[in-house]
């Protein structure tokens, strides 16, 4: 059992490190994790689920705005991008945030094609992140079920 737990923990650690290395997550995610404690054990999960809900909403808004071919309200799109940038940076979704920065410039330039492309990338990116974090949570659950404690992963 212990060996199993240790193995899971190792797997978990490696997985987390890879997420950071691949640029999915950044320091802000570490901060988020540090806010989780006994008083709020599901804090990270809660915040992330709020984030992904926001992603769905914002991407939807932007898609709708960009659908108005010929009368695209780039300000509206820009506002949504801005919000997404804010929330992604708050949770540590590094790649999503990076995309938002580009996206914003495209909006200001009123580059329709660019915006559409960027939006597609944002869509793919947040969904990918969502899947990866889901895997991470699953690993945590397995560790706990196996009787172990989820290890604190030191990024540095």
């Amino acid at each position, binding site marked *: 059992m212990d060996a199993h737990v240790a193995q899971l923990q190792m797997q978990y650690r490696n997985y987390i490190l890879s997420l950071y290395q691949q640029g999915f997550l950044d320091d*802000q995610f570490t*901060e*988020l994790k540090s*806010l989780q404690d006994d008083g*709020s054990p599901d*804090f990270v999960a*809660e*915040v992330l689920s*709020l*984030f992904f*809900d*926001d992603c769905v909403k914002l991407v939807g808004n932007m898609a709708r705005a960009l659908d108005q071919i010929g009368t695209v309200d780039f300000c509206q799109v820009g*506002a949504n991008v*801005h*919000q997404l*940038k*804010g*929330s992604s*940076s*708050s*949770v*540590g979704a590094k790649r999503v945030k990076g995309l938002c920065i580009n996206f914003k410039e495209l909006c200001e330039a009123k580059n329709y094609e660019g915006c559409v492309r960027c939006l597609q990338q944002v869509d793919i990116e947040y969904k990918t992140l969502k899947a990866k974090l889901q895997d991470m949570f699953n690993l945590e659950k397995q560790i706990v079920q196996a009787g172990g404690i989820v290890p604190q992963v030191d990024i540095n």
Partner: protein
Amino acid sequence: MTVEQGIEAVDQFPVGMRVLAVDDDHTCLRILETLLHRCQYHVTTTDKAQTALELSRENKNKFDLVISDVDMPDMDGFKLLELVGLEMDLPVIKLSSHSDPKYVMKGVKHGACDYLLKPVRIEELKNIWQHVVRKSKFKKMKSVVTNGESEGNSDQNGVRANRKRKDPLEEEDEEEEEQQERGNEKKPRVIWTREMHNKFLAAVDHVGIKNAVPKKILELMDVDNLTRDNVASHLQKFRLALKKITNEAKQQVNMAAANSHFMQMSSLKGLGGFHHHSPIPLGSSQFHGGAATTRHYPSNRTFAGMFPHVSSSLPRNLHNDGGYMLQGTPFPPLENLHINSNNKAFPSFASQQSSLLVAPSLVLEGHQQSSSPSYSPHLEINKRLEDWSNNIPQSNVHSEPDALGWNMFGNSTNQTYFCRDTDFGSSSAAHADSLQMKQQHENIFSPMTVAQLLRSSSANEGLFMGQQKLEDGFMASDAGSLDDIVNSMMTQEQSSRVLGRRLA
């Protein structure tokens, strides 16, 4: 306003500072809320600017600080900033993921105290309380009552503000700030009625004096229109008075009053008619910042009621303080002070209370457990009283309601202390008043009476202490030389300033 708000629990600020967080982004709002909780602030969140505005308007003393996002759908963040700043005069911190300097500039121009970039880090939030302090200091600066002091304050603004916040009992800061504050901020005064005070004491008893925090007390008290700050300043005064009582009690351990003195106590009751304004230039409109003093404490009740309150070793004085002053009719004769029966706030003291009221002598006896004290102190005091009375011109103090009379019992010094809250201005004024008070005293008190006041503390500390404090307070003012009184008044004033400040 912010000053008082900021002083959550004077010795606990910035812990418990009340923050209103506004952001339409739920993710960020949730994170912000958690971060603020981690900083030990009290947080209220909303995702609508309109709601935020309503919440803060609802009760101007509800929050110490507002943190708001810039981009919000229902209202421009800058507009909210302006409105909150203007109407409620609260420090507002802007939050945004726009790092563009022009947004920062816009924020500052609209009156933001600070501009934070998302993602917000906890380190940045740990220091936001400085804005509350700064703002209150700034307000005080603007409303300088005394010339020199304001300059002194402004020079050391930041340092003193911090120091003051951290240690509100520091006299030097308090004196000036209180004076300034007094002159300028007309905050609605809360009158601590006996009932409220009873509830306060009950709440303090419940949580224990060591754990007494305004928030808990406020919750336990469950009184409408009472803010945490009101409770906080009341608590502050309570603690200070308590400390004073303890100190005085120790000093007077060897003093005991003769039983006969107790009988004379009834004459003390007669003091009811006497306003101990002395320490409190109560008559002065300043006292209540010009506001009508609402000391509506039914005088007789007050006095009598005070005793029961004492149970929590709460210095009666607490009732006398800026805004708390009990003004009332002269105390009825002692016999009429059976009010105790009404003061069931502290059942444990009920019996004591009744004994107190009914038979002061009995009470005194109860208090005195030590060997008979020497009377010399009070003889001396009596003499001083005489001296003072001779020197004291009749003041208009008499016109003051008797609440002061109550004060007299409850520690003229304390009163001064509370009076200070009312922005006395100069100690000499207070002093003069005390003289007047003394004079009045003199008429009513006999030397023995005074002696009675000097009593050793006894077991029933709570009740006793309170009583003692009342008496001691009286004595204290008499006991010392004029200088002593002035000094003690100064001290009290300074302390009370802090409290006064806290009064909403």
